[in-house]
């Protein structure tokens, strides 16, 4: 399959509009609990999922909605799942972190790192029973420090399994900057296990597409696993309503609730020496300031804007194209919301 920017742009835009509309449902209170979006990851997902064939498997993390949508799972059934309806994709049992589609061999997990063993097992079945098919694992950089992820990479290397390990690196594990707690370099870690590693920019659709094409070809032809490291930015932070982003977006409203108890704690008699307290305060402030300087706020990090730049050379076609996709997604929502089960 040749690289087709229009087709990939369509996948990305659909996913973006779909997830933005999910965000609205969440803010309106129609979805309870956590909601992790994949907005900002679309180029990574589209570049890889568009190259999957029938029989290929996917192991997804807590941001699996985009991948399922791009893989061709019925969007109405995903939405009705998120709304908790009995005719949803998983009959209201799974929710966004636990989406499963047996016919697409796609399984999600909210357990960080579980994508490693899952993709490895799917790949074992592929190697044994369906040669030529492969498995992909999508996960964050935080998951790289989970024991089972490293064990899976080793197992996949030792058994020469057809897996693509895709690390979507946004630099953050919820409120923790992952680099501060990660030893060494992730690509070197993969190479140390005998797995070829490629670094790509998560906004660079063609770069992702080419790197994954090679990795997928390797896997299909029995040459074993690959590791793809793609940097990206989560435009909505860790999840919707994320406190650090709330601070960045509205510091005057959010800061007092945090600053008052913090000040009281620093001034409390007994406890650490002044030096220790200052070091502690520095840590808290650095997390807050990194959020204020957050790359999430820069549209240069938005893969959709990135891809769109090239397509802008065909303004009329682009306009029609986008209108059509918007209509499609709005039809999906109208249809998903039309009938509320009693």
């Amino acid at each position: 399959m040749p690289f087709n920017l229009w087709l990939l742009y369509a996948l990305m835009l659909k996913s973006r509009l779909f997830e933005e509309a999910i965000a609205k449902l969440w803010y309106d209170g129609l979805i309870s609990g956590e909601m992790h979006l994949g907005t900002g990851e679309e180029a990574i997902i589209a570049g890889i999922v568009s190259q999957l064939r029938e029989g290929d498997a996917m192991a997804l993390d807590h941001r699996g909605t985009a991948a399922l949508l791009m893989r061709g799972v019925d969007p109405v059934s995903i939405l009705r799942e998120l709304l908790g309806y009995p005719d949803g994709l998983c009959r209201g049992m799974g929710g966004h972190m636990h989406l499963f589609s047996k016919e697409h061999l796609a399984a999600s997990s909210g357990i960080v790192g579980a994508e490693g063993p899952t993709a490895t097992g799917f790949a074992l079945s592929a190697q044994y029973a369906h040669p030529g098919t492969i498995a992909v694992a999508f996960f964050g950089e935080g998951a790289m420090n989970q024991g089972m992820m490293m064990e899976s990479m080793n197992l996949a290397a030792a058994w020469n399994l057809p897996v693509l390990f895709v690390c979507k690196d946004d630099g953050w594990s919820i409120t923790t900057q992952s680099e501060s707690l990660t030893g060494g370099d992730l690509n070197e870690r993969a190479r140390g296990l005998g797995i070829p590693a490629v670094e790509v920019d998560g906004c660079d659709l063609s770069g992702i597409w080419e790197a994954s094409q090679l990795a997928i070809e390797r896997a299909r032809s029995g040459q074993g696993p690959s590791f793809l490291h793609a940097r990206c930015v989560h435009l909505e932070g860790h999840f919707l309503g994320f406190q650090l982003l709330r601070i960045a977006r509205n510091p005057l409203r959010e800061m007092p609730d945090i600053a008052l108890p913090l000040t009281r704690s620093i001034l409390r008699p007994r406890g650490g020496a002044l030096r220790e307290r200052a070091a502690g305060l520095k840590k808290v402030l650095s997390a807050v300031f990194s959020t204020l300087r957050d790359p999430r706020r820069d549209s240069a990090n938005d893969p959709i804007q990135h891809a769109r730049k090239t397509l802008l050379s065909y303004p009329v076609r682009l306009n029609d194209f986008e209108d059509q996709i918007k209509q499609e997604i709005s039809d999906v929502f109208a249809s998903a919301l039309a009938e509320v089960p009693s």
Partner: protein
Amino acid sequence: MKTLFFTQAIDDAIAQAMVDDPRIIVFGEDVPLLRRNLLVRFGPKRVRGTPISESAFLGAGVAAAMAGLRPVVELYMVDFLGVCMDALLNHAAKVEAFSGGKWTAPVVLRIPCGGGYGDGGQHEQSLWGWLAHIPGLTVLVPSTPADAGGLMLAALQHDGPVIFLEHKFLSETWLEFLGSGARRTVHYDVPAEGTKGTVPHKWEPIPVGKALLRRQGEDVTIVSVGLSVHHALETAKTLEKEGISAGVVDLRTVSPLDKTAVCEAVAQTGRLLVVDEDYEGFGLSGELAAVVLEAGISFKYARVCTEGTIPYARHLEDQILPNTERIYKSVRKLME
């Protein structure tokens, strides 16, 4: 006395203990931000963040405890113990027995648990029965801010591994972080007395293994723990209006179980209803029946527990988690 929220009370008790005992350190994922008020008071040597490597940092916490520290290890949710169970099952729980009683691992695990806010079956389990099944582990499940602080202090003074479960529905902080995300468009029916309450100015440890009779009752004894205690109390009020007197025992500690308190109460009423948010089979509810039977007491028995995997959809959750309606029906049936 002062008034604190549930999570604040736990943090407050930990702070008091940290002042008195320099061996106490706190670590876990996102702890620098989640426990920022401890971090700015005690500094980054004692309050630390960890990578998402539960097997490593929980296992390290167990061994650090053996070597003389008093670590408070935080996990994001009790469900995630699945990743690192070995540290508890085969190490923390075994040290004392294997060393012939000469060595222990005084580590405290502080972990959110419980459901009802729509996060699904991998994020809302209770699992205290599963943990209490293992000899050598102490399992605490407080239901009010005052108990939470007092039991945390006891945990920090205890000479073996303690699992301290903090119900997310009682914790304003967790419910906002994971449930509402600061929205006003979702509603959670949180019990007022569980989420906020008066606590002592200076914390005193609440003895481990001591249940509390929260309500006297003549006709039936409801034994419960954690969030469900509040559902039981609310139902008892309704039943009172209908002439049924239901007593409520709050276990507070799942292991070791306060057998005496349970047996005394059931001996008086002759009826036991267990309300347990953990799974029904092979757990706390069956254990309580066994304990009372072994004591030779004759009684009628029923249980309201979590039936199967917890669904994501909130209306489905309501059907399988314990709630006032299910408790009410069970008591009425026991009274027939």
